[in-house]
């Protein structure tokens, strides 16, 4: 998978390393800005309030 990606990056090795790092940073940015904020409220770690629906939340499968 990564081997395939590497062989399809253009340019000499230095160029490929730079592009690969940019791709990695872009993926991390997407995770931090959109994916993780979406996942977080679906996990039970951040519940701190008392709430009648809390039991239902705790029983809900992890998304």
């Amino acid at each position, binding site marked *: 998978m990564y*081997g395939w990606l590497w062989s399809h990056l253009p340019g000499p090795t230095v160029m490929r390393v730079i592009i690969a790092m940019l791709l990695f940073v872009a993926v991390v940015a997407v995770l931090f800005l959109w994916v993780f904020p979406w996942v977080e409220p679906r996990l*039970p770690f951040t519940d*701190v309030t008392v709430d009648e629906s809390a039991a239902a939340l705790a029983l809900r499968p992890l998304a």
Partner: protein
Amino acid sequence: MNAARRTVGVVGELLITAGVVVLLFVAYQLVWTNIQADRAANVQTNNLERNWGDRTPDDPEFDLPLKRGEAFALLRIPRLGDNYRVPIVEGVSLDDLAQGVGHYPETALPGQIGNFSVAGHRATNGEPFAYLDQVNVGDDVFVETGTTWYTYEVTKEYIVEPTQVGVILPVPNEPGAVPRRRLMTMTTCNPRWDSYQRLIFHAKLVDELPKGEGRPVGLGGDG
């Protein structure tokens, strides 16, 4: 054989990728959410103090009705540090709690008869209540509003199920009872890195001091 080897290789790479994503999520929770929440709490505190700075003694204590997601008071707990100061934001949604501690909107306001109740994160998102378990019965907790310093004294600490909403009733755990005392309640998750219980602190109002008359003794003033 070659196809099988390639499949195993791809599966292995996917598994390593999944591991890296999980580690990144841990970094997001433990570092990133705290950075974001601390920044948001600072903005809330600065806005509030600017608002208070423009206030004359004749102005109201709060700008009612309170706006969801906006701070209306500051919480100080000397047991958690001399510089411990957290904005109290109206509302207990995850967005509200990522900017300070959140006030349960249906409960009393600081200083009022009833049960002024707040929730705060014990881990991640600024974690204002990370070390709340170190607070003892008898400790003072201070709430600063636009006009007044309120001093509450912790009276009780205990652990309940997340569904036990009685702890934030006007008279805690007594549905329908008519409140006569001025109480405060703090809720957070327990144990710290999980959340299948809630850690509860009750406190009672022991002093109120107009801000024009200095700071409470417990905060270094001569109040």
